[in-house]
Every structure is written in C-alpha cells, then in structure tokens.
C-alpha cells in the first residue's frame, strides 16, 4: 500500500511536483498518468527511497519513505524508466547479484522462478547485451520481483516496445496487480485504461483527476456532448448548432462539430432537425465516446495551446494495439 500526502519536490526554482496526495491499494494496479515532465518519475523516485521529498509525507508498506528508507527499499521493487542493466552479465547472474545485495535466500532458484514468471527462462544464460529491448525490460521487471516485494513501482515499462511486447507486458502487469500493490506510470492513455484499476492523472506537478477509468469516463460523459458530422462547410453549420435551444456551446473539432448541452438532456433530435432544415447533409450524429485521451485533453485544455491539433484517433504508437 502506498499513501502519499501533500508531497512536494522542488529542484532549485523548478517545482517538479506540488502537493500531490493519493493512495494506491493492495491487489490493484494504480495508473499514474500524465505527459512527459508531469512529475511521474519524480514521485516514483521519492517513493522508492532514491531521493527525499522537499515537503510532504509518503508511506510505502507502512513505512515512511524518509524516516525508514531502508525498510521501504526492502519492500519495494522498482523498475526505472531507462532499464539500467549490466550488459555483460547474463540474466541469471544479474538477478543473482541483485538478490545477493538484497539478501535473498536461495537466490539461484529464486532467479529461475522470476525468469519463469516474466517468460524469459529460455534466455536465462544469455548475456543481457544480446537480449532485445522487450526482453531487457522483462529482466528489469524480474529484478524488481526478486525479493517478492509487496509493492511494485514501474516507471513507463512499456516504452519503446513493439506492439506484441507491449501486450505481453500489460498482461504481466495486470497479473502482478492481483497480489501486489502496483504503481504503474504511463503517458499512453489507452494503456492506463486497459491495465489499471484506478487512475491518477497528473499534469505539471498537480493531480488533476483520480478514479477508476470507467468512473472518470462516466463523469465526463454526463455532460452528454455529441459529435455531428456533416457533408458541407463546418464554419457555416456552426452557428446553426449554436442556435439550437439547450446547447451551451459548440465548436469545430475532430472533423465535425462538438456540441455541449446546457443540461443533461440528449440534444440530438433538435440538432438533427436544425441541421437538416437548414439544408446541411447530416452524415453522423453520436454521443462523443469519451476515452481517457479525451478526459486528459479536457482536463488539461486550459493549460495547452488552443491551436493544438485534436485527433479522434489513437496516437500512432498506439494504433496497432489499441483494442479497447
């Protein structure tokens, strides 16, 4: 279990994280979601006992990360963002070495066990330099599992993997989530949606939303926004939609018009009628499917440049594997 209260970290003038509070429950995968530079790695480094916070309090497995750093480190498995490995060692030797430093009993057998769990047992005696990126990532994960810690902290473990490896790793993380407290960071939103039981969205050092992926989605769908796509000039159609009674606002996005109703009523019938009666050819009219991507853009909108391209589709690195 991870409990974070009002955690703040300042590097000189830069405030990396500011008053972050959250909890990660055992038996769950908690997703830590945010763009690069949001403060995910900083928070994780504090939780692993790598560096102290400037202010605030964090307990991991019941121990304060600052006061009882060694106790915390005994109970945490950490996979940093750039999986740092000794490339001249074999996977088996590397794990045995890390196990020896940690004081793991029967470390040779234990190394075999964790290699089995991450599906790398066939390559146990290959030098790490000869392993593919995905395999190295799994060696890093095996290292984090060596001492069977109750808490796992994984910093962007799927970065740089090919689509199949990404799927395998996500399955593994979900599986680990059943018997560990897992804190898993990613900047890929659909990934958090697939893997995590609970999502914390962080941006510029602040937590901006927290909840289950479904809960966050429901919260934003309550707005009942709809997307209308027409065959014709969107600029001309926009005032028509804006003129529909009960529509609070409308804007051109995702090659269509996104309309937000003032209350929770479904405005689709009125919008369809208004558009057709004004001579526009209506192609599509549907409630806006809100995924985490949408939620994220929504939540960070005021912080972003208004000109940012908003895409309906998943990001390129995602498109091959997105299956939600």
């Amino acid at each position: 279990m991870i409990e974070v209260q009002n955690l703040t970290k300042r590097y000189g003038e830069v405030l990396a994280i500011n008053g972050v509070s959250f909890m990660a429950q055992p038996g769950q995968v908690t997703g830590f979601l945010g763009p690069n530079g949001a403060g995910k790695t900083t928070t994780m480094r504090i939780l692993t006992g790598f560096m102290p916070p400037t202010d605030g309090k964090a307990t991991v497995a019941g121990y304060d990360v600052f006061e009882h750093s060694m106790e915390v480190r005994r109970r945490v498995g950490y996979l940093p963002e750039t999986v740092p490995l000794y490339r001249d060692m074999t996977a088996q030797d590397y794990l045995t070495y890390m196990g020896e430093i940690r004081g793991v009993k029967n470390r040779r057998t234990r190394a075999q066990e964790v290699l089995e769990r991450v599906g790398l047992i066939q390559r146990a005696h290959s030098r790490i330099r000869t392993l593919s990126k995905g395999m190295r990532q799994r060696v890093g994960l095996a290292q984090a599992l060596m001492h069977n810690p109750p808490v796992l902290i994984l910093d962007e473990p799927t970065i740089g993997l090919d689509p199949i490896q990404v799927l395998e790793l996500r399955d593994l993380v979900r599986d680990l989530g059943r018997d560990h407290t897992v804190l898993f960071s990613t900047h890929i939103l659909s990934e958090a949606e697939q893997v995590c039981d609970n999502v914390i969205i962080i941006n510029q050092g602040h937590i901006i939303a927290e909840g289950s992926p479904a809960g966050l989605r429901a919260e934003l769908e309550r707005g009942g926004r709809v997307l209308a796509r027409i065959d014709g000039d969107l600029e001309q159609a926009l005032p028509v939609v804006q003129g529909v009674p009960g529509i609070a606002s409308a804007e051109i996005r995702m090659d269509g018009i996104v309309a937000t109703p003032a209350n929770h009523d479904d405005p689709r019938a009125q919008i369809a009628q208004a558009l057709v009666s004004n001579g526009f050819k209506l192609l599509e009219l549907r409630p806006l499917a809100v995924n985490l991507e949408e939620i994220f853009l929504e939540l960070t909108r005021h912080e972003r440049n208004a000109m940012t391209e908003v895409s309906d589709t998943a990001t390129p690195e995602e498109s091959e594997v997105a299956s939600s």
Partner: protein
Amino acid sequence: MTDAPMPYDAQTHHLSEEVTTGGSIPFWAVFKREVSLYFRSPVAYAIAFALFFFLSLVFNGYIAQANQRAPAQPALIPNLVTFLLFLIGPLLTMRLIAEETREGTLEVLMTLPMGEWHFIVGKFLAAWAYYTVLVLLSLVYQIIWTQVGVPDQGVAFGAYIGAWLYGGAVLAVCMIWTAVTEDQIVAAFLSAATVLVLYLADIAASALAAQPNLSMFAEILRELGLQAHYGSTLARGVLRLHDILYFIFIIIGALFITTRIVETRRWRA
C-alpha cells in the same frame, strides 16, 4: 508463485520476509562482482601487461649494469610501481562509479536496501585487490634478485608494504573523481593530476621551506604528500606507525568524501 490468478491476500506479503534474510553484507556481493570483472576485463590485462613490460625493461637494464653500481637499490621495483601509480590508479578506477552513473545502474543501486558505502567500499576493495595481485606478481623480480645477488631483504620488505599501502591511498583518491563525473576519461585525467600533485607535494614543500615565513605551510604540504611517507621511510625499510596511519587516513578520508559525493546524487538527480 504460480501464474494462476491469485486473489489478493495479506498473507502473501509475509512471503517477502521469508525470501530475504535481512542479514546480508551487500559490499561483499559488490566486491566479488568487481573482482571478477577485473579478471575478465581486457583493460585490466592491458594495464598489467604495460606495467610488467616496463618493469622488466628497467629491471633488465639495472641487472645488466649492477656490477658497476654499489650499493644495489633493493626498492627499485616498488619505487617504480609507486611512481607509475599516477597511471595505474586512474586506469583501474575510472570505470568504477562513472560507468554506473552513466548507465543509470547507480539509480537502481541507490534504491536497494544498502548504504552507499557498501558499494563504494566494495568497489574500492576490488580495485585494491587487483592492485595487490599486481604487486605480488612483481615479487618475481625480488626472487630473481635474490638468485643473482644479495639485496637487503628488510628494505625490500618495507618498500613492498609501502607500495601496497601507497596503492590503496592512490586508488581511494581516484575513487573521488570517478564519483564526481560520469565521464571516465575526465575521471582518469583528474585522478592522474591529483595523484601527481600528491606525488610531487614534498618536492614543492622543500622548495617552499627555503622561505622562512612559509615553513609552516611547507610542513603541512609535505605531510599531505605521498612521497614524504614513502620515499624516505618505507622505501628505505623504515616502518613508522606515523606513515602507515597516514595511508590509512587517506584511504578512509577519500572513501568518506566519495560516499558523500554519491549521496549528493539523491539531491541533484
């Protein structure tokens, strides 16, 4: 641990207490790994080769002319080794911490349940152990010497002990620079410069001692220098507690500074 779905159970987490013993000595693990790396590293063999090539050339020349010279210098080899430490020390140590910083493996080490001193002392002892092997191998010249002549074994003994301690001090000083920078070449150059300064300190001190108002400063400089504790004492077979304590003090002091420097990475990262 099985792959079958396992419901979360607080019991499971008592496993972690069973898996680890808690009473490990991490620096021993680090030491063993680093020693085995030295014996598998081409660089370490290249250093050994260059050292012994040079030693054998000098030794050969010395022996060839030995009958024209009196008395023989029994500390010849230890003296050469201590002089060459400004090269050997940086080359043996430059990799130790700089590489881990650059590769990011240091970050993992710093999240393991061990204090920084464990891996610093482990690495230092490994470097010193490799150096010890080099010194022991150089005893072969002493054996040849005893076959062809009658060197003063007492002087030789003191000089070898001196060269061994001297090496420990130099390697510890070099550890500081490999912790400061993540660039091995920079670490090697700064280490070599530092060792040369410490090597030449007593010469600078004797130059300064001529000035009456600087004599106090000159004395401190002399005390800090490596040669003042080796050249005129240990290398002549004089075992003084004072000199041995100096080398031990340098080793502990330098390793302490190294530990503090590595600790600052937690604040700088």
